[in-house]
């Protein structure tokens, strides 16, 4: 199946990787040159540095033979225009739009967008469902977009409790760099043993977050949302 994805932010990036892994043929359109090159370095020449809102660029990307066009930029107006152009100008059978303002959902459907992805609504639903107490906390995304600064609280159930930092099996390219204990910050040395109540600060790749969670907090109980 041939898929055109517009927008190489986090959603577009992970969608691209998932669909490639599932064996689909696709093109990712990202208008920002730096971001486009960054993704191309990883996934290869399927990245087109073009504005997917422009009709002629959509055509270049092969919209005419696409089974699906997915518009997942951070701007609702861009996603709407991509889907409408795809639908009405290129007869794409299925269009998917990311909608950031939940208020736009019904309008987009009404205007012919086939499928709506609403990260805001999903986040709201997840938060309303339950707020996990011992979760990892995302403090910041580091420049470049691949690394995150994360905070984890060590509890009685933590598999890391009482162990030394050097003995933990951490994911690749992940680093624990400080703990906050008794209100004071201190660097983590290889012989620092973790105690209940410690707050561990770590830098991790976004995709290794689950492994870091398992190492510091323990395997998630029940259905873990992503």
């Amino acid at each position, binding site marked *: 199946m041939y898929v055109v994805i517009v927008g190489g932010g986090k959603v577009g990036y992970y969608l691209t990787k998932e669909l490639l892994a599932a064996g689909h043929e696709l093109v990712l359109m990202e208008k920002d040159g730096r971001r486009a090159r960054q993704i191309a370095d990883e996934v290869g020449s399927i990245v087109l540095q073009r504005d997917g*809102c*422009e*009709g*002629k660029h959509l055509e270049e990307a092969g919209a005419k033979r696409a089974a699906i066009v997915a518009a997942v930029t951070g*701007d*609702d*107006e*861009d996603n*709407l*225009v991509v889907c*409408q*152009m795809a*639908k*009405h*100008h290129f007869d794409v059978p299925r269009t998917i739009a990311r909608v950031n*303002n939940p*208020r*736009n959902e019904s*309008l987009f*459907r*009404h*205007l*012919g967008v086939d499928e709506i992805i609403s990260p805001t609504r999903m986040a709201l639903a997840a938060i309303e469902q339950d707020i996990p107490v011992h979760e990892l906390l995302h403090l910041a995304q580091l420049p470049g977009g691949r690394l995150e600064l994360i905070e984890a609280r060590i509890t009685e159930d933590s598999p890391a409790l009482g162990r030394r930092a050097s003995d933990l099996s951490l994911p690749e390219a992940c680093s624990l760099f400080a703990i906050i204990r008794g209100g004071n910050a201190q660097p983590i040395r290889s012989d620092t043993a973790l105690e209940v109540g410690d707050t561990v600060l770590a830098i991790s790749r976004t995709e290794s977050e689950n492994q870091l969670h398992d190492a510091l907090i323990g395997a998630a109980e029940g259905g873990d949302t992503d």
Partner: protein
Amino acid sequence: MRAFIAGCGRTGAGLAERLAAAGHEVTIMDTSTEAFNRLDHEFPGRALRGDATDEDQLRRAGAEGVDLFFALTEGDNRNILAAQLAAESLGVAQVVAKVNDPVRAEAYRALGLATLCRTRLLVDALATYSGLPRDPGAEGVAPAIGHHQEHDGATAGVAVPVGGR
């Protein structure tokens, strides 16, 4: 007449003043209050800060049911979204979107929007100045082509654009 203008750039501000001077009730909206410096000190209409691509903000600003709605911000796509919100959700009968990309402008005429394409107007003005014949499609606001979209979201019956391809 009640008119609503989204975007207080040179075009939006100029139009707001003309309409207000002619005695119409004008509301102009922009995301930046600085943009309102373009308006005359004695501008009698309302100038409101807000995002015209947000339905709630448009409603609060009184855009519902106005006689004329002009989407004149800097962004083609923002204008397209604001104009469709006005037409579909706010029940405005006469809506014009400034769409400077000629391909998009033509495509949206076919989807029921009257469009104003600055690029096409300027190209035509300069081409005729150079002695070339007029582009018959480049005259002011280009009206919508054919039928409006079906209200159940169905896309059947939407005409394929005639130009631009």
